[in-house]
C-alpha cells in the first residue's frame, strides 16, 4: 500500500476516534450542564410560583389563572398542583408533538433527565398543596443537536485538511525518493547515471554515494575504452599517415561489398606516389613523410564530405578512397587532381608526381576484381609520368531511374502500393540459440525485389527514410504477431530518429502492442549515433520506457565514446564485420574485441558480431567472449 493511502487511512481513523470521543465528551458534559440548569430552573420557578400562590386567596379560578398564565407564557412540560391528600388541584401539560429539528434517534441517544421542581403552597398556617413543574427540554436538545452537527462538520473539514496537507508534505518528502529509486534501478540495470542530490539529508547521502559509484564507473569505462581505442587504432591504421592500413581498408571494402544494406555501387579512387624509393632519397625521409601525410590529409577531407566513404594506405606508395553510393567520378577526380597538383607544384624534383585512377564498382563484384580494376587504371595513369587522372567509365550499375522524380515515383509506389517487405537473418548465440532475427528492408522496384543498399541513398536524398523506417517497424510488428519471429531487430536511420513526427508515430505504434515491445530491438549505426548524439539521446528517452531494446550496429570504431552512452542504457552492440573479417589471424583485433566485450558486459550490454563468414571466425569470436553472431555462415 502506498504511503499516501496509509496516511489517509490513519487520518480517517484518528479523526473518527477524535470525533467520537470529543462528541461523547461534549454531549455528556453539555447534557450534565443542561440537566443541572434545567433542574435549578425548575426549583426556582416552582418556588417563586409557590410563593406567589401562598400569598393569594385560594380561589380555584385565581389559582387556575395563575398556573395557566405561568404555563402559557413560559416554557414548561407541565405544571401541577396537588393537595396534601394527593388529589390533583390543577394540571397543565404540554400537548402534541413539538417541532424538533433534532431527530428522534438523537433525542433517544442523549435523553435529558431533569428532576421536577417542587414547592409548597401554604394557605395561612395550613398546607394547601405541593406544586410540581418541569421545564421543556426542547431548546437543550436543539442545542445539543446543532453542537453535534457543527462538530461533525468541523471534523470533516479538519480531517480533509489534514489529509491534504499530509499528502502534500509526504509528496514533498518522498519526491527525492523517487529519484533515488530510479537511479538505484538504473544502476541495477548497469546504467551508471548520476542524478541531482536531493536536499533531504539521508537521500542526499545515498544519491551522493551512487553518484560517486557512477562517476567511478564512467571514468573506468573511459580509461578502458580509450585504451582499447588506442590499441585498435594502432592495429588498424598506418603509423605515418593515420589512415586505415591495408588490412583494415580491405575489411571495410569487403563489408561494403557483402553487407546487405550497403550501397549497390560506388566509386574507387587510387593515388600513388610514384618512385617512392627515389623520392625518399632525394627529398629525405622527413619531407617524404610530410608529402605522404599531405596526401592522406587530402583524402581524409574528401572522406569527411561523403557519409559512408573511407580511405586507406594500401602500401608505402598507394592510397585508396572508396565512396559507396556515388559514381560521380569526374567531379571528384577533378577535385583530387587539382589538390594533388597543388601539393607537388613547389617540389622541384622532376620525378615527383601523383597519378590518380578512378573507377566504379558494383556490389556483385569481388574485392579482388574491384582492386584490380583500380590498380590497372592507376598503372595507365602512372605511365604518363604526370599528376593526372585515369578515369575508367566501366560502371556496371545501370541506373534504372534517370531522375529524382522517377526515383520518388518508384519509391512511393513501392512504399504505398506494394508495401515494404522484410527479409530476416538470424542472430544466434554460439550455442545456436536464436537471439533475434534481424530484419532487412526490401522494396519491389520495377518488378524486382531490391535490397536496402540499392535504394537507400535515393531514399535519403528524397527524405523518405522516416516513412520507410515506420513501414519496416509495422512489418516487424506484424511478423512478431504472426509468431514467425520470437524477437526481431530493425535498423533505423538517423534521419528517422531525428524526425519528431517519426518518433511520435513510432511511439503510437509501439503503445498499441505493449506486450510485444520487449521483443523489439531497434538499432542504429554507431557512426550515426555519435554524429547525432542529441537526437539519439532524445530518442532513447522516449522509446526506452516502452521496454524496447536499443542497440548500435556496425560498432567498434567509435567505442571510445562508450562512456558518453553508458547512461542511456543501451542493450546491445553489434561489432562491425571489419573487425571480424581477419580476426582469426589478427591478434590485435582479437585483443580489441575481447576488451570491447568485457567493457560492454560490465555495463550490461550484449555483444553481437556482424558478418561472420567462416568457422574460424566463429571460434575466434567465441574466444573473445562475444555473445552472439550473425552473417552468411550463421544463416
Amino acid at each position, binding site marked *: 500500500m502506498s504511503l499516501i493511502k496509509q496516511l489517509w487511512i490513519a487520518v480517517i481513523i484518528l479523526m473518527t476516534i477524535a470525533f467520537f470521543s470529543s462528541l461523547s465528551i461534549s454531549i455528556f*458534559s453539555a447534557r450534565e450542564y*443542561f440537566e443541572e440548569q434545567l433542574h435549578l430552573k425548575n*426549583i426556582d420557578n416552582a418556588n417563586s410560583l*409557590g410563593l406567589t400562590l401562598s400569598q393569594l386567596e385560594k380561589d380555584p379560578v385565581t389559582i387556575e389563572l395563575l398556573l395557566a398564565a405561568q404555563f402559557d407564557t413560559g416554557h414548561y412540560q407541565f405544571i401541577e398542583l396537588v393537595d396534601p391528600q394527593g388529589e390533583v388541584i390543577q394540571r397543565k401539560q404540554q400537548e402534541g408533538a413539538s417541532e424538533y429539528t433534532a431527530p428522534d434517534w438523537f433525542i433517544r441517544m442523549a435523553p435529558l433527565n431533569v*428532576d421536577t421542581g417542587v414547592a409548597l403552597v401554604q394557605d395561612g*398556617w395550613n*398546607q394547601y398543596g405541593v406544586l410540581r413543574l418541569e421545564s421543556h427540554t426542547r431548546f437543550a436538545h436543539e442545542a445539543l443537536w446543532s453542537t453535534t452537527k457543527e462538530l461533525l462538520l468541523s471534523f470533516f473539514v479538519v480531517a480533509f485538511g489534514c489529509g491534504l496537507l499530509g499528502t502534500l508534505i509526504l509528496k514533498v518528502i518522498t519526491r527525492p525518493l523517487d529519484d533515488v529509486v530510479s537511479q538505484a534501478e538504473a544502476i541495477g540495470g548497469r546504467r551508471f547515471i548520476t542524478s541531482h542530490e536531493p536536499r533531504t539529508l539521508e537521500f542526499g547521502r545515498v544519491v551522493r554515494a551512487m553518484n560517486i559509484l557512477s562517476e567511478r564507473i564512467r571514468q573506468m569505462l573511459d580509461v578502458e575504452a580509450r585504451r582499447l581505442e588506442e590499441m585498435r587504432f594502432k592495429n588498424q591504421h598506418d603509423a605515418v599517415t593515420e589512415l586505415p592500413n591495408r588490412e583494415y581498408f580491405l575489411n571495410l571494402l569487403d563489408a561494403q561489398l557483402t553487407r546487405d544494406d550497403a550501397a549497390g555501387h560506388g566509386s574507387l579512387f587510387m593515388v600513388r606516389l610514384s618512385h617512392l624509393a627515389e623520392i625518399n632519397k632525394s627529398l629525405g625521409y622527413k619531407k617524404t613523410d610530410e608529402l605522404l601525410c599531405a596526401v592522406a590529409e587530402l583524402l581524409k577531407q574528401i572522406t569527411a564530405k561523403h557519409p559512408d566513404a573511407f580511405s586507406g594506405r594500401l602500401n608505402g606508395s598507394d592510397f585508396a578512397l572508396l565512396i559507396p553510393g556515388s559514381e560521380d567520378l569526374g567531379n571528384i577526380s577533378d577535385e583530387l587532381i587539382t589538390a594533388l597538383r597543388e601539393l607537388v607544384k613547389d617540389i622541384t624534383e622532376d620525378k615527383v608526381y601523383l597519378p590518380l585512377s578512378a573507377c566504379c564498382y558494383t556490389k556483385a563484384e569481388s574485392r579482388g576484381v574491384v582492386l584490380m580494376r583500380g590498380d590497372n587504371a592507376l598503372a595507365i595513369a602512372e605511365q604518363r609520368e604526370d599528376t593526372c587522372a585515369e578515369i575508367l567509365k566501366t560502371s556496371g550499375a545501370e541506373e534504372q531511374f534517370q531522375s529524382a522524380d522517377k526515383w520518388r515515383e518508384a519509391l512511393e509506389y513501392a512504399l504505398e502500393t506494394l508495401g515494404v517487405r522484410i527479409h530476416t537473418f538470424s542472430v544466434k548465440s554460439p550455442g545456436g540459440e536464436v537471439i533475434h532475427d534481424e530484419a532487412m528492408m526490401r522494396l519491389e522496384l520495377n518488378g524486382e525485389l531490391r535490397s536496402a543498399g540499392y535504394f537507400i541513398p535515393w531514399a535519403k536524398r528524397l527524405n523518405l527514410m522516416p516513412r520507410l523506417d515506420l513501414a519496416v517497424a509495422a512489418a516487424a510488428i506484424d511478423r512478431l504477431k504472426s509468431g514467425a519471429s520470437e524477437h526481431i531487430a530493425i535498423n533505423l536511420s538517423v534521419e528517422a530518429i531525428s524526425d519528431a513526427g517519426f518518433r511520435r508515430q513510432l511511439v503510437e505504434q509501439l503503445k498499441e502492442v505493449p506486450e510485444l515491445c520487449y521483443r523489439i530491438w531497434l538499432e542504429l549505426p554507431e557512426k550515426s549515433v555519435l554524429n547525432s548524439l542529441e537526437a539519439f539521446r532524445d530518442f532513447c528517452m522516449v522509446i526506452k520506457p516502452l521496454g524496447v531494446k536499443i542497440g548500435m550496429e556496425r560498432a567498434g570504431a567509435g567505442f571510445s565514446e562508450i562512456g558518453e552512452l553508458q547512461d542511456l542504457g543501451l542493450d546491445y552492440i553489434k561489432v562491425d564485420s571489419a573487425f571480424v573479417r581477419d580476426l582469426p589471424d589478427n591478434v590485435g583485433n582479437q585483443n580489441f574485441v575481447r576488451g570491447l566485450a568485457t567493457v560492454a558486459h560490465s555495463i550490461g550490454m550484449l555483444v553481437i558480431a556482424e558478418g561472420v563468414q567462416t568457422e574460424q571466425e566463429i571460434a575466434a569470436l567465441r574466444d573473445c567472449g562475444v555473445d552472439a553472431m550473425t552473417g552468411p555462415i550463421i544463416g
Partner: protein
Amino acid sequence: MNARRRALTSGLLCAGLMLGLPTIFSVRTASGQLRADFERFHRMMESQFGASRVTVSRAWEQMLRAAVDRTEMEQVQMVSQFFHQHIRYRLDINLYGMEDYWASPLETLGHGMGDCEDYAIAKYVSLRMLGISDANLRMIYVRARIGGSRSTITEAHMVLGYYPQPNAEPLILDSLVRDIQPARDRPDLQPVFSFNAAGLWTPGGTTSVASPTARLSRWRNVLDRIENEGLVW
C-alpha cells in the same frame, strides 16, 4: 456559542465532582432507627470546636437515641426542649459577622448559639432523623409582631411547623418561645411561605444536584454541609 462552551467546561467540572461524591447512604431510613454517622459528627465537633463541645453533641445523640422509640409528639417535645436548653439566641451578625448565615446543626451546637433559622434547621434535621416525614414538617417564613399581636413593629422570622397530619393545623416550634404552641395561639405570627427538603434533596440520594451552582442557594448549601457532617435520614 458562549453558552455551549460554558456547558462544556462546567459539565466537565460537574462530572468530576459527581464521580468524587460518596454514595454509601443510598438506603432509605427505616423508621425507629438512626442512621447518622455520629462518630464522624463528634470528630468534626472536636476538631472544629474543641473537646469540651463534644459533650453537647453527645448529649444531642443521647437525646435522639432516647427519642427514637417515642411518639412523634414526644419526639417534637424532646427535640424542642433540647435545643432551648443548649442553644442561646444570638443574631448572625454577632456570631458569624454576616447579615444572614444559615448554620448547620454542627455549627449551632458547636457555638451553642444561633438565631431563628439555625434553631429551625437544627430541629428540622433532628426530627427528620427521628423519622418524621417531610409531609409533616415545614420551615415557615413568618412576619412576626414584636411584643405581641397588637404590636406594629414587625420583623422577618422563621419557625418550624409540625403538622400532626398534612392537612391539620401545625404546631409551631419557635426559637424565641420555649413552648410548642398550635398556630392559632400565635396571632403574632403571620405565615408567608414554607418549604422543606422535599423534591430538592435526599441526603446521599442519587438525584442530589451537588454542583457549585446549586450550592449558591442557602438552603441547598446548608443541606450539603449537613450531609457532609454525617447526618442522614
